[in-house]
């Protein structure tokens, strides 16, 4: 790598990347692709699970009782303005430190906490908005049919709010994956370390190989979550099976509460 100068041939880079993947030594050991991939997947799975367990009940409950709208909007705005890198740095040189955390690797705890913090806003706000946007007439009709609060929640509100609830989880997964990449900047765990290692060794092939793995898996996760979302949308499913065109399609609308990817 020649700092400050680009212009390496694309074919040379591709060949270098292929060679990198074929070299078994790049897969082995603590700094190898296999270990980093396991760390990254473990971090993503754990953090998403924690964020869903904490955030979904809160968002659904707030939406059900109709309170906390301002809170929901504010946390998503603040979440967007606070850089992932800054939070990770503060946690890792602060009280939490960079100790090894079992299979989660160096600075595992600081990374996990940042991941959960960044996954919570989309989970909470989308669950809240999803619950609030359930058609009031439908809710009234269900009440008129004699449904109890618990029945109403389980059989009417939750199924109708499901598309946005899943959108929140989907955004959280993508967000967590991205944030786990940034952990490399504080010498933390995950696939980002392949990229930073490549930068340190001035090895463009390694930088690009690491980035490709991160990017491709991010896209796969997004696609899988989009599929999951499709299968959990009762209205869309009904429309599709009756042959109607689904209004709005799969792409998230701007109103959906997103936060910046790391």
């Amino acid at each position: 790598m020649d700092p400050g100068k680009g212009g390496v041939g694309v074919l040379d880079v591709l060949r270098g990347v292929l060679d990198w993947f074929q070299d078994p030594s790049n897969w082995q050991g603590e700094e190898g692709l296999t270990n980093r991939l396991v760390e990254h997947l473990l971090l993503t799975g754990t953090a998403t699970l924690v964020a869903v367990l904490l955030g979904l009940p809160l968002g659904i409950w707030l939406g059900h009782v109709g309170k906390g709208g301002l809170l929901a909007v504010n946390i998503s705005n603040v979440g967007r303005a606070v850089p992932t890198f800054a939070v990770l740095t503060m946690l890792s040189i602060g009280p939490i430190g960079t100790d090894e955390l079992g299979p989660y690797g160096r600075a595992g705890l600081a990374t996990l906490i940042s991941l959960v913090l960044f996954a919570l806003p989309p989970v909470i706000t989308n669950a809240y908005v999803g619950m609030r946007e359930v058609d009031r007439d439908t809710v009234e009709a269900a009440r008129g049919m004699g449904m109890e609060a618990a029945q109403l929640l389980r059989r009417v509100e939750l199924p109708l709010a499901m598309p946005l609830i899943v959108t929140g989880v989907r955004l959280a997964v993508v967000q967590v994956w991205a944030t786990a990449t940034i952990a490399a900047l504080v010498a933390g765990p995950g696939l980002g370390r392949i990229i930073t290692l490549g930068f340190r060794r001035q090895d463009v092939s390694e930088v690009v190989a690491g980035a490709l793995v991160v990017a491709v898996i991010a896209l796969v996760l997004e696609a899988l979550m989009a599929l999951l979302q499709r299968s959990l949308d009762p209205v869309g499913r009904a429309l599709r099976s009756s042959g109607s065109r689904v209004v709005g399609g799969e792409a998230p609308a701007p109103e959906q509460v997103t936060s910046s990817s790391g």
Partner: protein
Amino acid sequence: MVLSEEAPVGENCMVRNEWICPEYLTSRSDLLTDALVQHVWLTVVSVVIGLVIALPLALLARRYPRLEGAVVGTTTAIYTIPSLALFALLVPVSGLSAGTVVTGLALYSLTILVRYIVEGLHAVPADVVEAAQGMGYGARRLLWTVELPLALPSVMAGLRVAAVSTVALTTVGSIVSYGGLGNLLLEAVNTQFKPQVLTASVLCVLLAFAFDLLIVVSQRLMTPWTRARAV
């Protein structure tokens, strides 16, 4: 990184490595200003380039509805790629330069902006467009004097999201040494220098809010009709 034993050499908060340290602000004000200035220009240039590219893309998507799915799908895909990976993928093309960071950040901005502009144009009332066409407005005049002004609130909402996100993402540019305040963060990771971490982090958040406020105020100035002619 091994943390060296703290020795009580001096009496100031920098030596004691305290989070809150006024001494740091005064003694390192040059360093902070330089980082802040770099952060501002990286953000502004990226968002402006993003906007300049997003506008024609959004118009294209509107003109050819078949393209809309492709445009929105591609932009979603780009947005999904983590910033560290995106910058890394650009390195073979643009090297360790500010161009790498600006290209990456402009891509993220444009993915946000395209969607908001498309949404804003869709929301222009059809009867207003028909009225203008009836008055003999051509396509170009219709766009610039009727449709875009009416889509402005949505465009500005997109600009707010893009600017605030870009301020946060710029910090990751420190991987190629163009990260504005992020450079100070990366440096402090190695030295474990707490006042620098807190100061740079707080400045990042303040900068994001400053951009947000600036866009809100200019939107009010640019759309006087939303207040003057309340229906």
